[in-house]
């Protein structure tokens, strides 16, 4: 039961970190493509989604395992 509680807390704390990271990466991509070059809107939106998705995939496991370590260290 305690284990489940910890897992829940890990999930809640992690999402607050990795979601902004991935959304931020996507937005940065959108901004860069908007102000540099002459890219079609679809390419900019598509690129934003793809970069955001890959950033999510990269950041999720890193953030979750760090948060887990922090919480397990405390308990």
């Amino acid at each position, binding site marked *: 039961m305690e*284990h489940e509680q910890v*897992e829940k807390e*890990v999930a809640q704390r992690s999402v607050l970190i990795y979601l902004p990271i991935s959304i931020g990466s996507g937005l940065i991509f959108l901004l860069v493509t908007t102000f540099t070059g002459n890219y*079609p809107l679809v*390419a900019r939106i*598509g690129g934003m989604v*793809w970069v955001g998705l*890959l950033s999510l995939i*990269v950041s999720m*496991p890193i953030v979750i395992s760090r948060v887990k370590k922090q919480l397990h260290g405390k308990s």
Partner: protein
Amino acid sequence: MTETLSDLTLPISGMTCASCVSHVEGALKELPGVSNVVVNLAVNKANLSYDPQRVKLDDMLAAVKDIGYAVLTAELTLDVRGMTLRQTPPSGTSQGDACASCVDHVEGALNELDGVIASVVDLGLGTAKVTYIPGLATVSAMKRAVREVGYEAQERPAPFILSPTKVRGRSEGTDALDRERQAREEEIKRQGRNLVIAGAIGLIVMTGTFYDMLGTFKAFVPVWLSYKWVIGLLTTPIVLGPGRQFFSNSWRGLKHGVTDMNLLYATGIGAAYGIAVINTLFPKAGFGGEGATFFESAALLTGFIILGRWLEALTRGRTSEAIRKLMKLQPKVARVMRNDREEEIPTDEVELDDVVLVRPGESIAVDGEVFEGYSAVDESMLTGESLPVEKKAGDAVIGGTINKTGAFKFKATRVGKETALAQIIKLVEDAQASKAPIQKLADWVAGHFILGVHLLAVVVFLFWFFFGYQMFFDPNSSFIMSPYKLGEIGVFGFSLLLSVTVLVISCPCAVGLATPSAMMAGTGKGAEFGVLFKGAEAIENTSKLQTIVFDKTGTLTKGEPSVTDVIAGCEWKMEGSRLSSSDLQTGNVLRLAAIAEKNSEHPLGDAIVRGAEARGLQIVGPDSFNSIPGHGVEAKVEGAEILLGNRKLMKERGVDFSSMMSNAEALEANGKTVMFVAIDAKPAGLIAVADTLKEYSVEAIKHLHKLGLEVAMITGDNQRTAEAIARQVGIDRVLAEVLPQDKAEEVKKLQAQGKKVAMVGDGVNDAPALAQAEVGMAIGSGTDVAKETGDIILIKDDIRDVVVAMEVAKATMRKVKQNLFWAFVYNTLGIPLGAGLFYPFASLILSPELAGLMMAVSSISVTLNTLLLKGFKPSVGREHKPRQDSGNPQLHHATASAGDD
């Protein structure tokens, strides 16, 4: 508070790659009270230590399930007799007590067993439903537990595996092996089904996609099949059906912070499919339009990945054939005497001291000691001994061996997990589940690879989006091995394609499989020849050895003195005898000496008697006998006065041996002990006695030299004797006059010279030296392998098995290196190819589906390369094996002195 750790092996399903290994290890390590977690991909098992006070089995199962894998469990129904339904028992009756508490009793007894996850008793049906881990809990243990609390339990037919998929089981004798095989067969079936769906529909998708290139075949294909929306409709069931596993598995892992191969596949397939859907529904969206739908990429990528999984499931099972063969040796039933009646019961229900009956042709169920009957037993499957071994009252029999001719009864001395066969299986399984140092590195690389690949995919996407497309894109360029032009594909579509291809081609499956599959095949191959490696590390260390140190007595030599030379005095001839050839004269010298020594209890005298008997000489009792302590014996034989003893005795009695002294000295120079024989005060001959070399010592050392090893011998003998033996065997380095307790120190000295050293010796007496060496080989341990020290156990007393161990280890490591080389070469070449590094020069890019095929081929090639180990044969001859029971000693001409080490 002190921790009491228990060891546990969990069968894990759903692992496909090295990153899965690190995820399962990570999930289990995170649990409080769990340590020493080692997960092996090739055997799909997790070995760990845990503190039962701090962590429950349920927690471990949940932790594994949470990250998308499963622990194989099974369910079984027991009919429990003796429980009653009465709710209000008549007071004071024990039956009444039972009805109120029997549920608790039975459930409590079952739940206490190791490996039982849960048990639910249904009083109305009189059954207990047990969920357990196969291999950890056995049916017989459950029955015993129920019996111990006062009830009788009987197994109901058809247990089945609950997770990850339900598999029908057999009614009886279903064991861990069967369940593991069933699970694998189910996986093969499942992936086979997926392959048929993805393959068949994928072929139609391909036909539709390349409709324009079909030429005359167009007449057989309806034109509507080339419509993009039709191709899209056909691809959808492939992605959502067979391909769904990648999405669900990767999501399950991702939400627990783990990434695996499934994620690579899911992003690859998902991106190809998503872009194709957008281009079909919104061709003007700018993703390349109808010319870049890539439905066939999504369909074929799914098909190829599933093809890889299917082939891997097919071939992976074959690398564990050796252990399967060992497990199959265990007979399912045994015939025992119970209540003066013959009963056939499951083997795992045989108890200590049970009387077991064995008929001709039957397998022996458990280990025991014969007390009635006579037979010959084929033990080749366990000891490698090619000839059947005779068994009579007092002899030990080994479970799993086959009775050949006669019938006998024996008393069970070791049952269940204690039998020799169970110990050997456990040892091989543990070895297969362990990790070699080289594998730890490969697992670490593969485990961190996925994140790296996703980062690389971002970099590749950004590069081609911002720079590459503008600089190098050519609308006439195409995919490798495809006439399909990239045409009007836009910057996003092109960059996304290359990014997806990198994801797909980078799968480190081959890296993850390279080491464990070869280690598994190697340990199995060793077991086939009676060479048991205690771990993957033992194999790796053995392959790097430079020096092998042999203990002399009992390892290189037989450890007991034997007659090696008999020389008759040239002037001597037995009076009245018509025999005159020198052979017969030597025979007479030995015969008379043996008669004189018949009543002696001295080891040398015993050696002379055995030597004469082995030559077929008839030994009668002497007319009179007198022992001369410290010197020899004198006896009257057939009217002649025989004096037998050392040089000093002959000198004291005035017998002149000067004519034979040069022979005596030559024998002594070779480390032999010389006995002088005088008849009627005249010199009659010399008998040399020494510890004889084992039959194959010379052959084994020769082979070790061929393998480039330095061979040393360690002994308590004096330098001269030790060197004499070393010369005969071909030993390079002699470590003489070493006390038993100093052997480990000598090994340490060799190690200090920078050598990788193996020590070969008796597993019990030489334990410190075996432990000190990089590799300790315990030779001739028989089948009681659990007690042995050392990293390698050589079951037979055959020194050539040291050569077999070396060759198996070298062959295995060769395979590991080949596998790792090809796996890394694949990724090293594949990733730049997938990232479009060659596109600026060749105007060709790799399609995601071709990347998928390459990835599948790399995994399969690693497994197939490993399977080549199945044909491994050691260089030393196996056809003439010595008998294990040395009841009929032979004399050999190669000799060694009887040492005292």
